[in-house]
């Protein structure tokens, strides 16, 4: 099984022009400069001119500063933000087919319930389940399902956004009093 990103990794969200060949430019740059990609996800952004690529990079392969600077040299790259783990929300999606005969089906369903996953397909002796969540949660889910027998499994790369800034009403009130 693939090892999933935990420590020693950086998550970059890269806003790129929505044009043919842009993903190849980004991927080519990583291989050319010897940087390792741990995971990669691409999706259109709210502005149809741009797409967002979320890349998890191995921090050991090169300094993140050098990686972002080289990436930014690509004409099609518009904006790069590095998401710090404490300051971002990250999610990944997993689809997995689990062996589940009459005997084990109940326990698998229970596990899916505990993890707040979904059963999206049912066969005579297997279930296809879906789980979205933080990558570590998906790792745990995968570990617990393994004894039942995992058939096919697919995980997306992770997607991430920066945490929103918050001004709580309480803080505002304090400010108001002092000011």
């Amino acid at each position, binding site marked *: 099984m693939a090892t999933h990103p935990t420590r020693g990794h950086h998550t970059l969200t890269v806003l*790129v*022009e929505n044009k*043919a*060949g842009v993903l*190849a*430019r980004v991927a*080519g*740059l990583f291989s*050319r400069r010897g940087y390792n990609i741990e995971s990669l996800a691409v999706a259109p952004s709210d502005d149809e*001119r741009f797409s967002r690529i979320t890349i998890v990079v191995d921090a050991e392969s090169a*300094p993140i*500063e*050098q990686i972002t*600077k*080289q990436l*930014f*040299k*690509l*004409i*099609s*790259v*518009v*904006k790069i933000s590095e998401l710090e783990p404490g300051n971002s929300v990250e999610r990944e999606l997993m689809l997995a087919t689990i062996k589940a005969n009459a005997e084990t089906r109940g326990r698998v369903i229970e596990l899916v319930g505990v993890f707040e996953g979904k059963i999206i397909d049912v066969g005579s002796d297997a279930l296809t389940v879906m789980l979205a969540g933080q990558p570590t949660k998906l790792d745990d889910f995968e570990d617990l399902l393994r004894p039942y027998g995992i058939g096919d499994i697919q995980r997306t790369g992770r997607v991430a956004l920066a945490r929103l800034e918050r001004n709580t009403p309480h803080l505002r009130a304090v400010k108001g009093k002092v000011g």
Partner: protein
Amino acid sequence: MKLTGAQALIKSLEMEGVDVMFGLPGGCILPAYDPLLESKIRHILVRHEQGAGHMAEGYAHVTGRPGVAMVTSGPAATNIVTPLCDAYMDSIPIVVITGQVSRPMIGTDGFQECDTVGITRPVTKHNELILDPDDIPRLVHEAFYIATTGRPGPVLLDLPKDVLQAEIDWYWPDSIDLPGYKPTVKGHPRMIKEAARLITESRRPVLYVGGGILKSHAAEALRALADLTGIPVVTTLMARGAFPDDHPLCLGMPGMHGNFTAVTSMQHADLLIALGARFDDRVTGRVGAFAPDAQIIHVDVDPAELGKIRRPDVPIVGDCKSVIEDLVAALVALGGAEVQADRSEWIAQLHRWQEEYPLVYGDVEEGGALKPQMVIETLRDACPDDTIVASGVGQHQMWASQYWKFNHPYTWVNSGGLGTMGFAVPASIGAKVGRPDKMVWAVDGDGCFQMTAQELVTASTEHIPVKIAILNNSYLGMVRQWQEMFYEERYSEVYLSPDLPDYVKWAEAMGCAGFRVDTPEDVAPTIEKANSINDRPVVIDFRTDSSEKVFPMVAAGASNDDVLTAPGVQPGLELRRSTKER
């Protein structure tokens, strides 16, 4: 106005001020060659597409304007990959147009089809496959903008045949909209102030200047900075001519084959002011041992160069010219020349080194072959001060850089980063096309000459009177030198023969004047003869000593303190020891 894609392409090139292009037609690019007949753009028909690319580079080197090459698809596109990579490594602005199979054929392995944008993606600053004919004017405009701004570089446009044949409504874009491309020009004022303070206080500073000075037209600004501060200057291989060799503060070329003083000045400096230079391995030697006592101010238009090899104490992103001018203003604000730290001991030290360790070579033995260094010195003294010199790659390149006196910017054309053998002949042709008013000599090796000599047919046909000095030592000389020094004189596949080909006959067959020089007495008279010929190219076959090696030398991976001024002679080591004891 309705135009075909091909007409729009040529008109767009005209709009960009292109006066000359280098190329060779073929199937897919055929439509673009038709409107050329009505265009005022001069087209120079090369004999091999690699020649077109290097000519465009040579043109760009000496004019500062982007060089343009146009070739067909498939093998023509792959033939021009080397010049693209060369231009990418040395930040040379060129725009290359390639033909492509028609859109419905793309991906079907059609005749002369290749994935040109895929192949050239890692060796271009940017490239585009133009799928919509309406995009032609816009993408040509963007290509020139990208090639010439920020850190310059090669841009490729790939045009399918049916895109060239389609009809469009002509327009010319009045602006550039590239949301992902906004090069920084102005340096950060706080950083510039900090740099000015460091410079003012430093006692052993060196200006380490690279090709960026020439790209940003900063030679004058650099001169003002050096004159104001009295700081000595080393000019890297890519910056020869950016600061005059005749200037008392010029130390010449540093690096693997740099002179002792230039190399050692950096090793003993307390401050390096790197301007448009990229800490290339050929300059630094072993990075961990490079300029160990120096703080670094690093100015570059490409942010990715700052901290790539050596972490700067003061990083400044910006165009060299703009930053140097701001730096001079900041230095003046601090008090200018009057408040500079006392550097008299440093300058005196550098002068002592220059006297003690000049470039040297031996005399010709009775009846022996020519010394290549002597040929270059004689050539230099026989040519106007502003002669343009192009070179290939190898020993002859290093000797040309060491022994020529470069006193003007844009007079040295060579392949630094990629080290492309065969660069000299086509690059000199491109240079002569760009500056027909100047004398252009290529200093070439016999190995290099054989790689691209066919372009002299182009030069003869197009009346481009370049002059080629072949330093013929009948070897791949630099490889021979390494095999002698590092492989116990086990010479493997480096011998080329002095007489095969017969260079004089070959030159004459290509429409050039050809001479051969064997004796020292004939060197100057033959050069004089060559300099008087202006109606066709000239080739001189100088028979040089094959045992001659390039010194000084820092072996690959060694520290710059280990620089050999001659076999077994390493004066830098003793200096390092005495510094440690101090």
